[in-house]
C-alpha cells in the first residue's frame, strides 16, 4: 500500500480550516452534472473520493464491438478480474524502464566499453608483489592467507558483454543494475588457477587496476567496489554516471575467465579446491587426512563461467514472450516487498527467472500466458515444491558423467541445477530462506484463491519488513562472536570452503539448532541476510564482523506457546542421551502422572506474557550451550512494549490473567442471575457489554477493598463517598452486564411505561440479590450496581422489544411505520449490538491469545496521544480484531509487539475515504456479501461517517464510529501513526537496544493553544501514566479485605467530570484532548473559525462578547474570561492554565 498518501486522503490536520463534509457534497453535485458523460470518471479522483459510476442506458446497452468482446473475454480468461488486469498493467508501467532512459543507459554502456578497452596493460608481476598498485586503490579482497604463488599482469578484456536482466528487459525500478561481463584474456591466467583462491586473487587485482583507471575518468560519478551477490571472494566494480544521471543506473563489472578455461569436472561439489595445508598456512602437506570438499568455492568459480550461457538460456526462453517477462517483473516486485532478494544467499530475480525458464521447459508455463498467470504458476510451484528435499534441474541431457542430484543435496541445502547440470543456482540460499520463500508463496496463494478484493495491494504493494512480519526478533551482536561459535560447532571445513566467512558458515547450523530447540513453538524461522556492502576503492573491504548484524525472525505457533514443558523420551531409551546432550543441564528426569519417567525440560513461566517469551529462554540457553554465545550477545526483541500494558505493581504479567479473573467472577454472577428466584419474569439472557469482558480493557480491574477512614459514609444507602480533605479515591469502573428479560404480554407498550417497569425490575433485582446471595447492591432507574468479590458490575435490565417501541411512528392515516430514532438506535446499540460484539471478541481472544495484548496496546497508544476520546472503545477493538481476522499478507500476530506495529501500519495506510474496514467476525460474511457491502458503501459514502467499520452484525451503519472521530481527528491519528511506526521499528531493529521504548507513546504538546495542568492529587488513575510517577497519592485501598462491605465510590473521575463540563460549555469554541490514563495535561485547541468576528445572534452568544470593530458591533469569543473559567470550573483540580499561543488576536 505504500506510505500514507500524505495529504491525498482526509486532508486537513487538526487546525486546518478544511472540513470534509462540504468537499463531499461538492463532488457529489459535480458527479451528477456530468453523469451523462463518460468523463465523470477522470474528474472525481482529483478529489480523492470514489463516486458510484453512472453510465447512461445507451452506453450500457450499445452493441459491443468485436474488439471489446475480445478484451472482456481475455480479461476473464487470463486475469482474475478486470481490476486486477488494470492494476497489473499500471504496476508494470511504473517499474518498467522507459525507452528514453534505455537510450541513455545504452549510450553510457558504449562509453564504458570504450574506456575499459583503453585501460593500459602492465607487465607481469608476482601475485604477492603488489607494490605496483597505485596509492589510491586497495585490493577489494581479504587476502587471507596472503601467500599465493603465481603471476599477474593486466591486459584489457578480451570481450565485454552485457549480461543479465537488462538485456532481457526484466530489470525493474528503482535499482537499475546492468551487469557487464569482462572476459579476462587467457594470458593472465595460468594452469591450476582454480586452486587456493588464485583465480579470485587475480580477479580482484584485475578489478583494482581497472578501478584505478576508471576513477580518474570524469564520465563516472562514482566508482566503488561491491561483492557479486554478496560473495566476499568475488568483488565487482560499480560504475555510476556523472551528474544528474547518477541514480539512473549502476553498471556492475564482473571479470570472468575465458570460456573453456576451467575443466568443469574439477569443480563438482565433491571436489576440493582449497587445500587445508595452504589455508592453515602450513608449509608441508598436512597429516594425510582426506581434504574436505569445497562445494561453495567451486560454485563461485562455476558462476563466473556460466554467466553467458545463462543469458543465452533466458533469452531463448523469455525473449519472445512478453507475458513471461511481465511475470518475471511481477515476481521481482513480489520478492522485493518481502525482502527476500537482498543480501548474500537471497532468492533473487535471477533465481525466479531461471525458475520460470524451468517451468517453461517442463511445460507448466506456456509462452502465451499473462504476467498474472506466470506469477500464479510460479507461486503455486514454490508453495508445493520443497527444493531442500527434491531438487530440480534444468539439464536435460542424461550424460552419465554428470553428478547426481543426491550429491548436490549432500553439499547444499537447496538444489536447483542449471542447464549444464554442474552448477547449483541456489548454492548460497539457506534452507531457512527457501522455507521463508515457500511460506510466503503459500500465503500468497491462499490470498489469490480467496478472491479478496484488494489482493493486488496486499500481494504486490505491501512491504513486509522483518520486524513487522515476525512475532519475535533476535539480534546477535557483536558478529565476531560467531567466529567462536564456528569453532565450538566444529565448522572448520565450512570455514575453509567459505574462505573464512564465519557468518555464512555458522548460519546454517545455528538455524537448525534453534529450529530443533523451539520445536512446536515455532512456525517459521527466518534470518536476515547480511547486506551487500559497497565501499570506496581507496578503502579495504569491510571485515566480516562489520557486515551489519545478524537478525533472526521467529514466527510463533500460538498453540505451542501455552506449554512450559519440553517432553523428552523415557529415561531408559537410547534417545534419552541425545536429549540430555541437546538440552544440557536443563534436562532433568521427571515422573509424570501416568507413571512414566521421562527426561524433560521445564521453563519458568507463570503468566501468558512470560509463556510468550519462553522462546527467549530456549534460544539463550541453546546458544550458550552449543554455540558459546553468551546471553549478553543475544538481544531479544519480543516483549519490549509489554511494559506499557503491565499493571501498576506487577511486572511479570501483561494483564491477561487479571482479566480472566474478572471474567470468571462475571460468569459466577451470571449463574446467580440465571438461578434467581422470585423475579416476576425469567431472565432470558445475560450478556457482558464491557471491554473487560472482551479482554480489551487497557488496565484490568483489581478487586477493590476501600478503607473506611478514607471516605465519607452514607450509612443508610451503604455507600462510600469521596472526601474533600483527602486525595481522590481509586477509580472503580463498574462492568456493564446486560440482562434480558423474557418477553411477555404484561410488558406495557409505551416507552415511558417500559422505563418505569425496568426501573422496578432493577429495584427487585437488587433486593433479591441482597436477600438470596448477600451481595451489596445499589439500584437506580437504569441499572443496578453489584459488588461481588471486590468487582463491581452494573446490571442493566433490557426488554427485547423496547427499541421497536421507540421506533414506532403513527402516520396521519393511522399506519404504524418503523423509523429509527436517536433513542432507539442508542438502545439498540447498547443492549443488542454491544453484547454481540463483546461475545464475538471474547471468542476471538480464545482463538488468538495475543488479541488482548494487541487491542490494549493499540488503545493505550491512541489514548496516550490524547485522541482516545475521539474514538469509541469498540471501534479501536474492531480495528485490532481486523489484524487477526484479515492478517493478509501476514499471518495473525502471536505477540502484542508485532500486532501493535501492524496496527500502526494499518491506521497509517488505510484509505478510510474510499474503503470500509470489513471485520468479518466469525466469518459470517461471504465474498459476495462483501462485494455488496463495498458497492453499497460507495453509493452511500456521503452519508456515512469518516471512518467506516463493517461487521456481520452491522453491515450498513458503522454504529461504533457514528459519533466520531471527525475527519481532523482521524487525520491526526493517521499522521501520528505514520510518524510513530518508523521510529518504533527503528528502535526495535536496533541491535544496541531499543533505547526509550516509551518515546512513541508520549504525545506532542506543542500543537495545543492552551494547556491545562491538573493536580495529581485529584487524578485517580495517576499511576497509569505512560511515564509512571515514582510516587503518587494514597487512593484509600487496603491490601487485605477489610470488614466493610460498603459500595465503593463508582466512576468518580474528576478529570472526566471536568472535561464533560468544559465540552458542554466551550465545545463550540475549542477541542479538548486528554489521556484518561493518568494524564496530567488537558490540551486545548481553539477551533480555527471561531475567531472570525460574527454579527450578533441571540442563539450563538455563548461565551462571546460584543465589541465594536470599525464602527460595527460584532461578537468575538471572550477568551480572557474563558481562560479564567477553565480555572473556575476545575477548582481544586486545575493547577495552572497555560496559554501558549496568541492565535486569538481579535
Amino acid at each position, binding site marked *: 500500500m505504500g506510505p500514507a498518501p500524505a495529504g491525498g486522503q482526509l486532508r486537513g490536520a487538526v487546525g486546518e480550516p478544511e472540513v470534509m463534509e462540504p468537499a463531499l457534497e461538492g463532488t457529489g453535485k459535480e458527479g451528477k452534472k456530468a453523469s451523462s458523460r463518460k468523463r465523470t470518471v477522470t474528474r*472525481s479522483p482529483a478529489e480523492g473520493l470514489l463516486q458510484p459510476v453512472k453510465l447512461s442506458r445507451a452506453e450500457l446497452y450499445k452493441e459491443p464491438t468485436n474488439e471489446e468482446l475480445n478484451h472482456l473475454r481475455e480479461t476473464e480468461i487470463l486475469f482474475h478480474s478486470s481490476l486486477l488486469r488494470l492494476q497489473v498493467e499500471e504496476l508494470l508501467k511504473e517499474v518498467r524502464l522507459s525507452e528514453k532512459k534505455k537510450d541513455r543507459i545504452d549510450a553510457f554502456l558504449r562509453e564504458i566499453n570504450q574506456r575499459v578497452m583503453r585501460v593500459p596493460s602492465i607487465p607481469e608481476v608476482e601475485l604477492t608483489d603488489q607494490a605496483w598498485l597505485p596509492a589510491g586503490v586497495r585490493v577489494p579482497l581479504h587476502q587471507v592467507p596472503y601467500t599465493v604463488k603465481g603471476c599477474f599482469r593486466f591486459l584489457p578484456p578480451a570481450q565485454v558483454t552485457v549480461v543479465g536482466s537488462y538485456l532481457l528487459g526484466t530489470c525493474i525500478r528503482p535499482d537499475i543494475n546492468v551487469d557487464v561481463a569482462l572476459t579476462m584474456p587467457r594470458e593472465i591466467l595460468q594452469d591450476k588457477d582454480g586452486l587456493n583462491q588464485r583465480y579470485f586473487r587475480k580477479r580482484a587485482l584485475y578489478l583494482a587496476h581497472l578501478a584505478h583507471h576508471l576513477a580518474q575518468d570524469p564520465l563516472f560519478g562514482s566508482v566503488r567496489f561491491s561483492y557479486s551477490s554478496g560473495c566476499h571472494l568475488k568483488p565487482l566494480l560499480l560504475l555510476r554516471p556523472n551528474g544528474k544521471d547518477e541514480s539512473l543506473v549502476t553498471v556492475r563489472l564482473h571479470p570472468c575467465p575465458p570460456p573453456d578455461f576451467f575443466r568443469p569436472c574439477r569443480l563438482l561439489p565433491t571436489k576440493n579446491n582449497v587445500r587445508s595445508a595452504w589455508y592453515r598456512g602450513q608449509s608441508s602437506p598436512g597429516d594425510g587426512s582426506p581434504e574436505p570438499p569445497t562445494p561453495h568455492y567451486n560454485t563461485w568459480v562455476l558462476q563466473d563461467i556460466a554467466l553467458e550461457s545463462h543469458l543465452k538460456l533466458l533469452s531463448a526462453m523469455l525473449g519472445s514472450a512478453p507475458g513471461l517477462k511481465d511475470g518475471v517483473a511481477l515476481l521481482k516486485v513480489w520478492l522485493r516487498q518481502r525482502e527476500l532478494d537482498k543480501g548474500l544467499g537471497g532468492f533473487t530475480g535471477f533465481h525466479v527467472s531461471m525458475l520460470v525458464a524451468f517451468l517453461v521447459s517442463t511445460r507448466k508455463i506456456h509462452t502465451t500466458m499473462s504476467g498474472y498467470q506466470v506469477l500464479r504458476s510460479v507461486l503455486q510451484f514454490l508453495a508445493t515444491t520443497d527444493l531442500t528435499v527434491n531438487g530440480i534441474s534444468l539439464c536435460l541431457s542424461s550424460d552419465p558423467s554428470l553428478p547426481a542430484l543426491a550429491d548436490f543435496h549432500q553439499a547444499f541445502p537447496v538444489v536447483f541445477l542449471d542447464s549444464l547440470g554442474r552448477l547449483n543456482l541456489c548454492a548460497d540460499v539457506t534452507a531457512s530462506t527457501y522455507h521463508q520463500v515457500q511460506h510466503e508463496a503459500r500465503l500468497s496463494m491462499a490470498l489469490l484463491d480467496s478472491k479478496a478484493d484488494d489482493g493486488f495491494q496486499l500481494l504486490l504493494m505491501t512491504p513486509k519488513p522483518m520486524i513487522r512480519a515476525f512475532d519475535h526478533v533476535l539480534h546477535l551482536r557483536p558478529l565476531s562472536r560467531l567466529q567462536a561459535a564456528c569453532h565450538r560447532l566444529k565448522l572448520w571445513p565450512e570455514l575453509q570452503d567459505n574462505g573464512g566467512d564465519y557468518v555464512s558458515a555458522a548460519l546454517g547450523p545455528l538455524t537448525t539448532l534453534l529450529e530443533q530447540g523451539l520445536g512446536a513453538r515455532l512456525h517459521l524461522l527466518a534470518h536476515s541476510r547480511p547486506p551487500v556492502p559497497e565501499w570506496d576503492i581507496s578503502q579495504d573491504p569491510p571485515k566480516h564482523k562489520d557486515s551489519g548484524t545478524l537478525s533472526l525472525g521467529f514466527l510463533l505457533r500460538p498453540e505451542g506457546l501455552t506449554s512450559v514443558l519440553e517432553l523428552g523420551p523415557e529415561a531408559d531409551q537410547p534417545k534419552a542421551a541425545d536429549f540430555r546432550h541437546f538440552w544440557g543441564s536443563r534436562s532433568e528426569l521427571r515422573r509424570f502422572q501416568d507413571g512414566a519417567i521421562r527426561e524433560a525440560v521445564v521453563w519458568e513461566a507463570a503468566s501468558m506474557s512470560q509463556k510468550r517469551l519462553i522462546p527467549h529462554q530456549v534460544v539463550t540457553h541453546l546458544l550458550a550451550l552449543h554455540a558459546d554465545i553468551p546471553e549478553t550477545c543475544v538481544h531479544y526483541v519480543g516483549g519490549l512494549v509489554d511494559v506499557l500494558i503491565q499493571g501498576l505493581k506487577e511486572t511479570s504479567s501483561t494483564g491477561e490473567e487479571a482479566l480472566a479473573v474478572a471474567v470468571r467472577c462475571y460468569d459466577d454472577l451470571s449463574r446467580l442471575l440465571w438461578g434467581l428466584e422470585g423475579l416476576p419474569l425469567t431472565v432470558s439472557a445475560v450478556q457482558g457489554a464491557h471491554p473487560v469482558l472482551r479482554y480489551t480493557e487497557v488496565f484490568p480491574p483489581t478487586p477493590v477493598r476501600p478503607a473506611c477512614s478514607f471516605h465519607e459514609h452514607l450509612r443508610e444507602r451503604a455507600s462510600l463517598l469521596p472526601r474533600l480533605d483527602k486525595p481522590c479515591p481509586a477509580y472503580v469502573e463498574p462492568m456493564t452486564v446486560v440482562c434480558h428479560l423474557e418477553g411477555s404480554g404484561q410488558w406495557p407498550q409505551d416507552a415511558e411505561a417500559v422505563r418505569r417497569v425496568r426501573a422496578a425490575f432493577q429495584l427487585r433485582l437488587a433486593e433479591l440479590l441482597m436477600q438470596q446471595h448477600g451481595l451489596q447492591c445499589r439500584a437506580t432507574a437504569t441499572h443496578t450496581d453489584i459488588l461481588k468479590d471486590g468487582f463491581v458490575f452494573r446490571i442493566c435490565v433490557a426488554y427485547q422489544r423496547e427499541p421497536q417501541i421507540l421506533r414506532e411512528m403513527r402516520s396521519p392515516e393511522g399506519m404504524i411505520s418503523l423509523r429509527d430514532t436517536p433513542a432507539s438506535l442508542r438502545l439498540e446499540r447498547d443492549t443488542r449490538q454491544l453484547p454481540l460484539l463483546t461475545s464475538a471478541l471474547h471468542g476471538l481472544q480464545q482463538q488468538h491469545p495475543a488479541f488482548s495484548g494487541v487491542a490494549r496496546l493499540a488503545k493505550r497508544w491512541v489514548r496516550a496521544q490524547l485522541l482516545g476520546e475521539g474514538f469509541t472503545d469498540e471501534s479501536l477493538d474492531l480495528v485490532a480484531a481486523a489484524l487477526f481476522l484479515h492478517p493478509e499478507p501476514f499471518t495473525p500476530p502471536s505477540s502484542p509487539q508485532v500486532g501493535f506495529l501492524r496496527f500502526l501500519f494499518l491506521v497509517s495506510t488505510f484509505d478510510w475515504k474510499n474503503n470500509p474496514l470489513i471485520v468479518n467476525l466469525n466469518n459470517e460474511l461471504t465474498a459476495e456479501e462483501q462485494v455488496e457491502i463495498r458497492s453499497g458503501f460507495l453509493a452511500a459514502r456521503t452519508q456515512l461517517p469518516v471512518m467506516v467499520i463493517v461487521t456481520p452484525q452491522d453491515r450498513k451503519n458503522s454504529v461504533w464510529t457514528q459519533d466520531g472521530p471527525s475527519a481532523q481527528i482521524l487525520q491526526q491519528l493517521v499522521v501520528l501513526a505514520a510518524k510513530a511506526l518508523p521510529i518504533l521499528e527503528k528502535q526495535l531493529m536496533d541491535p544496541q537496544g531499543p533505547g526509550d521504548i516509551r518515546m512513541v507513546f508520549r504525545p506532542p504538546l506543542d500543537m495545543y493553544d492552551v494547556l491545562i495542568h491538573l493536580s495529581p492529587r485529584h487524578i485517580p488513575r495517576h499511576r497509569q501514566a505512560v511515564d509512571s510517577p515514582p510516587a503518587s497519592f494514597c487512593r484509600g485501598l487496603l491490601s487485605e479485605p477489610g470488614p466493610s462491605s460498603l459500595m465503593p465510590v463508582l466512576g468518580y473521575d474528576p478529570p472526566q467530570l471536568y472535561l464533560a463540563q468544559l465540552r458542554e460549555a466551550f465545545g463550540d469554541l475549542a477541542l479538548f484532548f486528554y489521556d484518561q490514563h493518568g494524564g496530567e495535561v488537558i490540551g486545548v485547541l481553539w477551533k480555527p473559525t471561531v475567531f472570525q468576528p460574527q454579527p450578533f445572534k441571540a442563539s450563538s452568544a455563548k461565551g*462571546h462578547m460584543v465589541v465594536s470593530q470599525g464602527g460595527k458591533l460584532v461578537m468575538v469569543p471572550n477568551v480572557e474570561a474563558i481562560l479564567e473559567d477553565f480555572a473556575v470550573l476545575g477548582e481544586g483540580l486545575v493547577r495552572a492554565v497555560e496559554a501558549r499561543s496568541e492565535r486569538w488576536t481579535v
Partner: protein
Amino acid sequence: MVARRRKRAARDPEEGIPSPPGYSAIPIKFSEKQQASHYLYVRAHSVREGTKSTWPQKRTLFVLNVPPYCTEESLSRLLSPCGPVQSVELQEKPDLAESPKEPKSKFFHPKPVPGFQVAYVVFQKPGGVSAALTLKGPLLVSTESHPVKSGIHKWISDYADSVPDPEALRTEVDTFMEAYDKKIAEEEAKAKEEEGVPDEEGWVKVTRRGRRPVLPRTEAASLRVLERERRKRARKELLNFYAWQHRESKMEHLAQLRKKFEEDKQRIELMRAQRKFRPY
C-alpha cells in the same frame, strides 16, 4: 496578553460596555478573584403581535450568555436588588413557552451538564425589569456569604446526590404505573364500548382485539403482503424462454461487465493519483 488587558481596561470606563442594539450588557464574574468578566446581555422580554408566549409581558427579563457556574438561585439573588424576583428559569436556548409545570423526575431525567444558558427572569413588578437594564455590575456569582460550589466541591456533592434513594424511586414508579394502568384500562374500556358500534356515518371500526382479529396496520405487514404478491407473480413468469429474453439477459451480462470495467478504471485512476503503484 498583558498588553491587551491593559488596553481593554483603558477602554472600558469612557465608552461603556458595547452591547447589541436592544440589549444592555452587565459584566458578571465568578468571584472577586477573577479579572476578566463575561457579559450578560439582557433586555425586556417582548414578542411580536400574534406570537404566543407564556412569559408575562413587561415583567420578564430575558438574559443571554449566562455562564455555566451561575445557578438559578444565584441569578435570582444577583437580580433581587432590582426588585423582588418571582421566578428564574434557565434554558439551553431561547424558548417562548414556559416549561411544563410539573417537575421532571430526577430519577428518569438526570440533570444535564450545564453550558452557557439563557434565562427568563420574572419579576413581581415591571419596575424590576427596567432597574435590571440599568444595572452596572460587575455581578459576583460566588461571594463569601453565598458561596457557589465549583470544581471538586461540586463534583463531590453531585456524586453524593447521584446515589439514589431506592424507596423514593419505588414510590415514584408505583405512582406512575398506577396512573398508567388506569389510563390503559380506561382506553380499553372505551375501545370495548365502541367495538362493533357504527359511527354517525355508519362505519364500523375493526380492531385487533375483536372476535376476528385482522392484520395490524403496520408498514411491515403491508410490505409483507406486497412481497408475497410479487413472488407469486414472479413464479408464473417464464425466464429465458423466448429468444429476445435470451438476448436481453446476455446484454444484461455485458452491461454488468461494462459497468464493472468503468468502476475499475475509476479506482485505478484514483490509485494512480495517490501513487499507489510504486512498489518502493
